[in-house]
């Protein structure tokens, strides 16, 4: 069952990545050129999934949209991991009061969910994909700190790390040589789950008009646009919705599957 979860997840994620890669070399039609076909076509040939309100081939746009989704996810998760993982290891190393202060700070940060932070940043710096990604990334840092710290604490308490410390190995070396490889799977799980969350957040932001600009093919934006045509052309809203759901489901399943696969003892609630 758990194995099945992982495989379904991997299949979905692979499909999304493949779509993004394919879109670099080939799309059936130009995904940005207005009027590449008649407007609001139903699915058929040559437009497999139909065309949107600008006459753009939806399938092409979905393919290119995969790029946006991955782009948002990679940058957001990248920011979160690059900041969160070192801080998490540091928190494991700090004396009690320092760690306590740091964890309390992450508690405060939890009061700023990604979407709220993104709205706040959009209000100040203007709405854009970059603002959205940075906001989602920053808001995800605490999750990485917590996960990394939890993992690092157990690694630091292990015999081989004690031995290494006793042998005078400098702290950064221990962090890189012992801690990082042993918390990597935890970070992988968190990254996968955060990736899914980033895609959802970006979609919501695009719907609110605070995310990806309309010219860039993005699933969230497509979904928002399609809402207008729900009455006459319900399939317009179907494809991007399915794409988002599939990608989010994929990353979530990979995260869950990975967690159970790598460490069956890990519980879902930390």
């Amino acid at each position: 069952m758990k194995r099945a979860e992982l495989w379904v997840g991997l299949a979905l994620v692979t499909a999304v990545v493949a779509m993004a890669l394919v879109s670099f070399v080939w799309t059936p039609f130009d995904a940005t050129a207005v009027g590449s076909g008649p407007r609001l076509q139903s699915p058929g040939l040559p437009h497999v999934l139909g065309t949107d309100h600008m006459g753009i081939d939806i399938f092409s746009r979905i393919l290119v949209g995969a790029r946006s989704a991955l782009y948002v996810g990679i940058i957001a998760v990248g920011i979160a991991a690059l900041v969160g993982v070192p801080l998490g290891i540091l928190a494991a190393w700090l004396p009690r009061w320092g760690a306590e202060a740091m964890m309390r700070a992450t508690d405060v940060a939890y009061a700023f969910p990604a979407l709220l932070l993104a709205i706040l940043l959009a209000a100040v710096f203007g709405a854009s994909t970059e603002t959205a990604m940075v906001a989602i990334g920053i808001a995800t840092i605490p999750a990485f700190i917590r996960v990394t710290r939890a993992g690092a604490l157990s690694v630091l308490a292990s015999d081989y790390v004690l031995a290494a410390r006793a042998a005078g190995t400098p702290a950064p070396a221990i962090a890189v040589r012992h801690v990082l490889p042993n918390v990597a799977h935890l970070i992988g799980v968190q990254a996968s789950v955060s990736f899914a969350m980033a895609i959802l957040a970006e979609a919501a932001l695009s719907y609110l008009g605070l995310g990806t600009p309309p010219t860039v093919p993005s699933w969230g934006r497509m979904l928002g646009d399609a809402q207008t045509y729900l009455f006459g052309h319900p399939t317009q809203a179907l494809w991007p919705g399915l794409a988002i759901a599939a990608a989010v489901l994929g990353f979530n399943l990979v995260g869950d599957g990975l967690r159970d696969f790598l460490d069956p003892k890990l519980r879902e609630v930390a």
Partner: protein
Amino acid sequence: MAKSTALQSGARARLRTLSVLVAAVALALTACTGAGQQAPAPSGAPTAGATSAAPAPAPEETRTLVIGATAEPQTLDPTATDAAAGPQALLYNVYETLVRLDAAGDLKPLLAQAWDVTPDRLTYTFRLNPAAQFSDGTPVDAEAVAKNIERIQTGTTAPKLKNQMEVVVGTEVVDATTLDVTLSRPSVTWLFDMAGAAGIVMNPEGFDAAGSETAGSGPLTLDRWTPGDSIALKRNDAYWGTPARFDEVTFRYFKDPNAMNASMLSGQLDIISNLQAPETIDQFSDEGRFTIIEGSTEGEVTMAINNGAAPEGVPAGTGNPALQDVRVRKAITMAIDRRALLDTVWHGKGTLIGSMSVPTDPYYEDLADLHPYDPEEAKRLLAEAGHENLTLRLRPPTLPYATKAAQFIASQLGAVGITVQVEELQFPRQWIDTAMTNADYDLTIVSHVEPRDVATYANPAYYWRYDNPAVQEAVRKAGEGTIEEYTTEMRNAARIIAEDAASVWLFALPNLVVTKEGVTGVAENANSSLSFDVTTIAKA
């Protein structure tokens, strides 16, 4: 010339530098279907318009009217900001003016029964309707009107209204129902402005609380304001004129046009004041349930070209020098298939125009085919000007129609060899700062909903950065001349800028109103008063 001076001269020429600000808060603001006295009745409707007496409401039945609108007022004082939302709900319905604009755009008496102007066109004498009274029973007298004019000039009112009232140098209360107003120079537009928010006559008792309570003399008064949701008006039982046909009139506000459509489709709304997503109009094609009214607005969706003028006192601007060549500007105009663009961006609704003027303007001239779509000719002009490899920055605000149009235009200009980099500017702040204030753009797209805004081309400091003495002269003469001179000179100005391809006028915004079956008397066209006048509306 200091910036402020430039603006003053702008004001003299009736320039509304803030017009775009208003305009763009998205077509949102065009949600101001007009103040028609007597809109053409939808076919087959037995009763319509102001002339037919209101059917006496059944005693127990509450007669209600619910109107869907887009932009919500930030304050209940329609004079506090230049947003169209306040006048839309309140003007003529709650607040009245000396004169009003009817559906044809003509001035009609309201609080003033009649008015005269001296031969030098500097002094107006208004005779007030002696019956007129505020909702608390105080009469609307000359004293109150004078106080309102003074309030616009010196109170915390919108700069736009202050500019409109700036021409007034004095008021004199002759008697309780007679008021003289003296102008510093003749002005054709002042009286028109007096039919809008600037001319609102508010009960002076209510000045202080105007932001949260109303104090008008109209047929309706405020029932309750639910910010973020609605403004509910109720019948003013003490109204001095023909009583309102409705016990309750509610303006409900929707940021999302789809939500408004859903509400209409579910039967919650009686009227969509202006359909913001024209592509959804087919949803209302069921004639048994809905009636669609297609009229016009004062709005021109314009692709501004940075003409490169750099008057003193304003930031230099960064327009591509190639755009100073009229051949390049013409080529850009001819490279764009505006019919196809209208189809894509606004579902084919609206009118193609060729200058900064809409068909309801008295001076309108159809110039839509002056520079017809001809990509070959465009290429030839570019070659002639030596700009075969032009790269331009198209910086639209982040508004749906603008970004859609930008996508379309980028694609079409690409076809004639102009590389277009689309860089969106967050609206309003970033766009106003970058495009409007600093002229840091080559091309941008925005809708200008202010009436008669061809005059903006007479201000070289305006973000078109268009400096043409012939236009400036024409606009000056128009402002100070008679009605006839005004019409002639404005037409002249509109023609010059069109021939000069100073901008690309993409299309005139339509006024798309959807009403529930049985609702009649809604004005077809939106006019410059910005009011959504419910006094003419009836519901079967």
